[in-house]
């Protein structure tokens, strides 16, 4: 929680996507797992309806709870209004910050753990939003970590709870456990064999919902799908994790079957598809982030079957993050005007993929 100089702050932000580049369990089709818990203080209006002094009071109460705890000693405390918009977008692209927080706002603070896996947002839609992220399929682990964070805070703060509804939240879609668990999946196989809709419809029947890569209101980009629990009321945390885990595993199985079928039955078609994506990335001079992501998705499929060595999943995950607008600019050392950004992205990709070929 120390005050840091400008360069070390920049360094801190720069590393915020580090967690994403590890290879987690089932990394061939699960990019990351996330657990988020929403909690509120009693009686004080929820953030969207609170006045300045009420927001400040919430912030003070939570700061007081976090401050003396050795558990949070190494967490970095950032006030959103002190972070410039590029850095905010960078943190959002690293999935540490919500879209809501990226907009800025008063009395909004985020605490980030030294390994960047845990972030605690204060005065988001709810007074407290805690989340834990990790690469690959690790739902139980991220849930355990975030429960620990919650328990630690719960020792010093009494969270508002209703006798009938459980933990209360600003939006009734979160009431009960306040828990949202999600897995980010990469499902190019199911998309290619045209089964994705059917599978996602099946998923919807378990009270789970499917979204795009940046959560609520985001498009399906590059065959990436986020599956999360919709129901938070009337279910225990254990039940929520159990259902999501078993459904996600089944989706992974279907994806693997689809990939097997593709590579066995239509090897030339798949090779063509992946090589085309690679060629475009190696030779194009203008590339927006959505297009880059859709090509990288195909590349990822090729890596999975060992056709693009020495390129690995970790390096590809890095590229997927670095084609995002804020990352691209940050790596280049400052703002790049929109007009030249697509060119810079294309050149970066050319360079990074220059020695790769399908084999």
């Amino acid at each position, binding site marked *: 929680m120390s005050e840091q100089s400008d360069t070390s702050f920049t360094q801190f932000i720069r590393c915020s996507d580090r967690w994403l580049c590890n290879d987690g369990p089932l990394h061939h089709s699960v990019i990351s797992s996330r657990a988020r818990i929403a909690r509120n203080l009693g009686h004080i209006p*929820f953030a969207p309806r609170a006045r300045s002094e009420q927001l400040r009071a919430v912030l003070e109460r939570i700061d007081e709870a976090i401050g003396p705890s050795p558990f949070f000693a190494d967490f970095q405390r950032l006030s959103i209004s002190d972070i410039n918009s590029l850095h905010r977008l960078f943190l959002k692209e690293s999935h540490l910050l919500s879209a809501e927080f990226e907009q800025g706002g008063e009395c909004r603070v985020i605490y980030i753990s030294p390994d960047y896996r845990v972030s605690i947002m204060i005065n988001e839609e709810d007074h407290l939003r805690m989340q834990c992220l990790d690469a690959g399929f690790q739902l139980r682990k991220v849930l355990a970590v975030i429960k620990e964070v919650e328990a630690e805070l719960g020792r010093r703060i009494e969270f508002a709870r209703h006798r*009938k*509804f459980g933990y209360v939240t600003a939006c009734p879609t979160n009431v009960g456990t306040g828990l949202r668990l999600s897995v980010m999946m990469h499902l190019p196989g199911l998309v290619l064999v045209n089964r994705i809709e059917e599978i996602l419809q099946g998923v919807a029947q378990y009270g789970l919902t499917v979204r795009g890569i940046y959560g609520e209101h985001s498009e399906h980009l590059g065959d990436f799908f986020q599956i999360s629990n919709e129901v938070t*009321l*009337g279910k225990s945390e254990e*039940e929520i994790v159990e*259902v999501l885990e078993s*459904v996600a595993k089944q989706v992974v199985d279907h994806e693997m079957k689809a990939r097997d079928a593709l590579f066995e039955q239509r090897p030339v078609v798949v090779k063509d598809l992946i090589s085309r994506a690679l060629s475009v990335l190696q030779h194009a001079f203008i590339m927006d982030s959505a297009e880059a992501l859709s090509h990288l998705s195909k590349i990822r499929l090729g890596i999975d079957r060992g056709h693009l060595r020495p390129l690995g999943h970790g390096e590809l995950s890095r590229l997927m993050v670095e084609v995002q607008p804020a990352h691209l600019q940050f790596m280049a050392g400052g703002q790049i005007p929109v007009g030249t950004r697509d060119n810079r992205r294309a050149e970066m990709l050319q360079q990074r993929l220059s020695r790769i070929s399908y084999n």
Partner: protein
Amino acid sequence: MSVEIHKCMNCERPATTKITKIGKGGKVFDIYLCDEHAQTFSPYLKKTQPANLVELLQHLLKQQGAMAEAAAAAAGAEEELPGRTCANCGLNYGAYRKTLLLGCSDCYDSFEDLLSHDLRKMHGVIRHAPEEEGATLAETSVAADAESAAKVPLVETINKTETAAQVKTDAAVKSPDGALSVADLKRKLRQAIDREDFEQAARVRDSIRMLESLQPKEEVRCKACNAPMVVKHGPGGLFLGCSEYPKCRETRPLE
């Protein structure tokens, strides 16, 4: 979370009627209509058009009587609904309905009864898990029932999708194990109807139909090699294919 204000699908006026239809395969879609188009959409929504003066008078009288009755029945509640306000934060229930965001923890007390509708829509239940303190025995069993019902489709639907559309299969259609029997599904159907969870009921109904249509097909054998035929999914939809594929490429349309 924001709430869209829907327009009529046939004109630009704001919609006053929402019709939720459940199509094939449990696909749910909403239709939004203004008053006028709602009347043309369904005979049930049609206002009776009086033909002559006598009928008109009768109609008016009847309407008036009905209105007075309804007003008497709804007395206090109707008046109070749009105006109810949380004593702690001052949020009006009408304002909540627009944003779906409550104002403070006390709103859950202030609007406790009014929230049931939204909670049921969002979560399928209107109270938290049975281990929550204060839950009575009866409520506990209701919640537990809802949970077990929610858990069951896990096996069913994946099995269903598995049998309905195999990318690549090495065996015959999986013989339905306990979880996938028609009798079980029919029980689920009854439960879903009891819960008034008609969307789930429609899905279970489709599963039953699909299962019933699939069962006799297990006997079908390939004309070329006498291996069992299995249901497969191709660009043209479902068909029967030889389970020995790719060794045998025999196919047959699914009756």
